[in-house]
Each structure stands twice: as structure tokens, then as C-alpha cells.
């Protein structure tokens, strides 16, 4: 099996879709000559030309909004919002338009639009370039929400997002772009709505997303040395949510930790905890622990930044707290 970086895996899904399907095209800031601020779309301009790899003005509302209009007319646009902090500028189009057109029209239209974006801390960007906002979109009926953590997943899920007939907000994590991993020769579409069990275990389930999947795996290895067997599950699609896989895991392990980089309060971990405590109430031997950023806008200075965002040790400590319960 070939090895790709997470960045290459995103690019591979994009270029295959562009190659196969004339209705697919890209819009976003600096995605053409520069290949995107994360170098994800490098080379695509050369292969597909400026009609399909479209640099846009700094107009996040119009980028998403025109994507919606083109999607309704039968195209499959993939738009890029350079940092997810700037999704804040397109919320109206995402939430009132993309998510609602189908219901409001009584099923007359569909909006096969993919909105790729990325974010994540750990490189001292300060408060406006690293906020993780995925939980907002989980609250919006009509959207689908994906957050992929490995090269294989990001490729297979992006493909499915592009070919889904609904608007999909697709989160990538900035610190994962250089991450390498094996991927199948042929692109395997990964259905939206299926969680992935990364590691089996019997004592506690960590449900993690994005960068925290990797931190959870590291924490799991460390815990193993103390004889704690950790199962790590990545929902991958946050909406619709694969409750079945997640709940089954917790019913097996009887303990649960949720982990993401977003701040804990109001984060996706809250939804997970609410679902799990409800569905696995009689199985839980300890309160569900939530790991995430501390409640502050991200400060610049590295020492403060590292204090705010969750680390492997935070996951490990949460694992330990759950197993410490009688």
C-alpha cells in the first residue's frame, strides 16, 4: 500500500474527483498559483486550469454562497475557507442557506457542496487562527460534519463528502498535514456516518477527534504500561453520528473519555457525553471525562498556549481518573 501524507491524501481525493468529474471545481483564497495556504492544492492549477481551480477575493460569504448556487445548478463545488476562524464570516450562508434550502423547498433542491477548512493550535498563531468550531455545525440540521484524523480517512471521507448530495463541512487539522500513513491503492470511499475503532481495549473508551486521536493513541500506549487497556474510537463524521459504534464500545469498556482540541464547554464532547450517558447509563462505571482546551481565547506565548490546549498527559490523566473510580 502506498504511503501518503495527510496533505497529499486530501490532494489525491481532490485531483481524482476533478479528473473524473467535470462538475467538480474548487474555489478559495490563494488555492491556485500558491496551492493554498497549507499547500494542499499545489499542482492542481497546472493540471486543471484556472476555470476549475479558482482563486477568489477575500469574501467568505460569497465563496460559500456562490458554492451553494453552483451546487444547486448541478455542480459539485469544493470550497476552501482558509482557517476555520473565518467560517464565522460565512455562517449565514452555511446555516440559513446551505443547510435549509432542501427543507424550505420541500425537497426540490439539493446542495452538493463541500466546505473544506482547517485549523488547530500548537504553532503560536494567537487567538484568531486556531479556534476549533466543529461543534457549532453539529447543531445545524441539514449539514453534515466531518473531521478526519488520518491520511486514509481524510482521503476516503473527502471523496464521500464531495459525492454526497448534501452540504458537508469538512474539517482538517493543521498539525496533521505532514502526518504519513498508508492508504489503499484504489481510493476507497469511506461512508459518512461510520466511526473507526483505532485500537481495541477493555477498560476505557476514548472518543477522540482530529489531532486528539493521535494523542489518545499515545496516551493509550502509555496507559497500557500501567495495565490499563484503552479503546480509541474516532467518530470521523460528527454529523450524522455513529452512535452505535461509540455506545457499543462504552458498553464494553464501561468507562469513557472524550477528547478534542476545542474548548470543553459547549464542545462536541458535550454531545458525546450526553448521548453516551443516556444510551449506556447502566453500563457506566465512572463519570464520562471530557478533555479539551481550557476556557480561554488562545494566547500567543507558547507557554500559555500549551497550557490552554490539551496534551497527551491530559488524556492520560482523564483515563486514570475514570479507571480510579471503583
Amino acid at each position: 500500500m502506498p504511503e501518503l501524507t495527510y496533505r497529499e491524501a486530501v490532494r489525491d481525493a481532490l485531483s481524482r474527483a476533478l479528473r473524473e468529474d467535470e462538475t467538480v471545481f474548487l474555489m478559495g483564497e490563494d488555492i491556485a498559483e500558491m496551492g493554498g495556504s497549507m499547500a494542499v492544492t499545489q499542482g492542481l492549477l497546472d493540471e486543471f486550469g484556472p476555470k476549475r481551480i479558482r482563486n477568489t477575493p477575500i469574501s467568505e460569504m460569497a465563496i460559500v454562497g456562490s458554492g451553494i448556487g453552483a451546487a444547486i445548478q448541478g455542480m459539485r463545488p469544493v470550497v476552501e475557507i482558509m482557517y476555520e476562524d473565518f467560517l464565522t464570516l460565512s455562517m449565514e450562508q452555511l446555516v440559513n442557506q446551505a443547510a435549509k434550502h432542501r427543507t424550505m423547498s420541500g425537497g426540490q433542491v439539493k446542495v452538493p457542496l463541500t466546505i473544506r477548512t482547517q485549523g488547530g493550535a500548537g504553532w503560536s498563531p494567537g487567538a484568531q487562527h486556531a479556534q476549533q468550531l466543529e461543534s457549532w455545525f453539529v447543531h445545524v440540521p441539514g449539514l453534515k460534519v466531518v473531521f478526519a484524523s488520518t491520511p486514509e480517512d481524510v482521503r476516503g471521507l473527502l471523496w464521500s463528502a464531495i459525492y454526497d448530495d448534501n452540504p458537508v463541512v469538512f474539517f482538517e487539522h493543521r498539525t496533521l498535514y505532514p502526518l504519513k500513513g498508508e492508504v489503499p491503492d484504489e481510493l476507497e470511499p469511506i461512508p459518512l456516518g461510520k466511526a473507526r475503532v483505532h485500537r481495541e481495549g477493555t477498560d476505557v473508551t476514548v472518543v477522540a477527534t482530529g489531532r486528539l486521536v493521535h494523542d489518545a493513541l499515545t496516551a493509550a500506549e502509555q496507559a497500557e504500561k500501567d495495565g490499563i487497556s484503552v479503546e480509541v474510537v474516532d467518530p470521523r463524521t460528527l454529523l450524522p453520528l455513529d452512535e452505535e459504534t461509540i455506545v457499543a464500545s462504552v458498553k464494553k469498556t464501561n468507562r469513557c473519555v472524550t477528547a478534542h482540541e476545542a474548548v470543553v464547554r459547549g464542545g462536541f464532547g458535550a454531545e458525546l457525553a450526553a448521548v453516551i450517558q443516556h444510551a449506556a447509563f447502566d453500563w457506566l462505571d465512572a463519570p464520562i471525562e471530557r478533555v479539551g482546551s481550557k476556557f480561554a481565547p488562545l494566547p500567543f506565548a507558547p507557554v500559555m498556549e500549551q497550557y490552554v490546549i490539551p496534551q497527551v498527559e491530559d488524556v492520560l490523566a482523564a483515563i486514570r481518573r475514570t479507571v480510579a473510580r471503583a
Partner: protein
Amino acid sequence: MTTVEEKAGSGGGRVSKEGLRGFFREMLLIRRFEEKVEERFRAGELPGFLHVAIGQEAVASGVCAALEREDVIASTHRAHGHSIAKGTPIERIMAELYGKVEGCSHGYGGSMHLYDVEVGNLGANAVVAGGIPGIVGAALAFQMRGEQRVAVAFFGDGATNAGTFHESMNLAQLWKVPAIFVLENNGWAESTPAKQHLPLPVDELGKRALAYGMKLIEADGQDVEAVYLAALAAREHALSGSGPVLLHLRTYRLVGHYVGDPQVYRDKEEIKKTKATKDPIELLRARLELDEDELASLDAEVMAEVEASVEFAKAGTDPKPEDALANVYAPARKMDRGGLHA
């Protein structure tokens, strides 16, 4: 949808008397439809939140007559006229207002969300300026596929203050997509008069186009012929590849912002005077020299249609409660390994 024979021969030509009578009938139909909507709302029969466009009929009729069926529009909270003029049968609109399955949005939309994709109505929008960027995207799709179609956004003077408007105009001009931006300038945003919300004098709002180098076409929005000819010219320009057009139409709202609006903020004399001098239907009646008899028989015809639409709507089917969840997502598509998609 009014069809005007001379359409093919655009470029300053005048509309025949026949053509004008067609406009008159459609505008009257829109007027009577909306009056009926007001009446039924006051009678407590219609749920929700309603905005009528009484006084603005020439805009809807004139613009839509210049469009082809495959052209698309996006409308606003004040959507009945646009929807009728784009070709949705009034009984399907009335049924929508009654929340019926037979409605043009199958009861999911209501007055502020009238859709009829088959005739090119991509939906009315209850968020001011919310529909404009979608029109840029529709026009982009037409351009990319080399289709001779235009995409048209209706919006008001108030909407030109929204960032969404700016980004859309800018992007459309940058990419020279075949879009028409129809600025339906009635000088009010709800209770707020133009001088309280526009830094430009109300009649100079077309200057918004200058910030993008966009083609501006202006016409008297109370004169349906002028609107029609201007819209034809706009369509021609948009399709020529020279870029989109801001079509600035000065018009007048003869009634409140919403049905039931007591208009406390508006001078009673001004309302009276505007009604007396700016009614596009009255203006056209005078020009056509329709006498009382002609008018009465036309009116009876139109009223019968409107009454029939109410009957149709009332006899319609109520959605089932659980239908609420039926259209949240488009159904899954088949997908093969390696990506075949169909």
C-alpha cells in the same frame, strides 16, 4: 408569466398595446392576489409572516417577462409578485401560504420561502441579501457550462447595505458571470426611510455599481414597459460575456412593510400622495385608456382566478406532522469503489 412578442427584437423598441395589456392583466392579478392574501391573513386563515409588494408589480412583471423559462431568479421576503411573474400558477402559491402539500414549496416554505425550481424560481429568502450570492454561483455554473442563461437576484434598497450584497456584486463582476442584480428600490427598509439607512440620496443608489465597475441600467420601476426594456437590455449585456448588470429600478411601496403594519413611522400625507401618483397599475390603466367596463371585466376575470386559488388552497392536503423530517437531507447516492457515482 407575461410573454411579449417583441422580446426578440430588443434594443429600445416599444411594447405593443397587446403586450402592454398582457402586462396589465398580470400586474392586476398580482395585485388582487396580494389583496386577497391580506384579507385572508386578517381573517386569521393564513399562518406566519407576510409581506406584500403592492405598488411594485411593474418590477416583477417587467423583469420576469424579459427572462426565459430556463433563466433563474432568487427572490426576497416580498416574493409573491416575483413568483407569479416567473410562472408559478397562483393556486400553488396560495396553497403554500395555507401550508398545503400542493403548495409550491409543499408546505415547507411559506410566504418567505416560495420555490418553484421547474420554472426557475430558486427560492425566496427571508434573510435580507441572503439569496444574492447563490445567484452568482448559479450564473457561474451557466458560464462554466457555456449555457445561455442568466441568473437574477431581486433585492431591495435596504439589502444594498449588507456585506453579502457587496461580496456578491464584486465576485460577479470579477468573474463576469451572467447575472442581473435587480435593485428594487422602494426607499424603505421596513420602517427606516432611505435617508436613515443610505449614505447616498435614494435616487442615486445606482452608484453602488461604480465600486465594482459594473454596468448600471436604470429605469422607472413604476413603468412596466421601461422595466421590461431595461431588463431585456440587461439580459443581453449579461449574456454577451461583458459581465453582470445592476438593474436599478426606483419603485414605491404603497402599503406597510408587513401585512398588519400600522406604519406609525410614515407620514399619512406621503402615503396618500404616493398612492395617488405612483400606482403602476393606475398609470398603465391610464396609458392604455382602459374604460370602466373593460377594467371591470378584466378585474372579474382576475378575481375569479384568485378566488379559485383560495378554493384550491383550502381544499389542499395538510402535510403529516412527521413529514417535517422528510427533507432535511437528500437521500444517499450509490457510490462505488474508486468513485463511480451515479
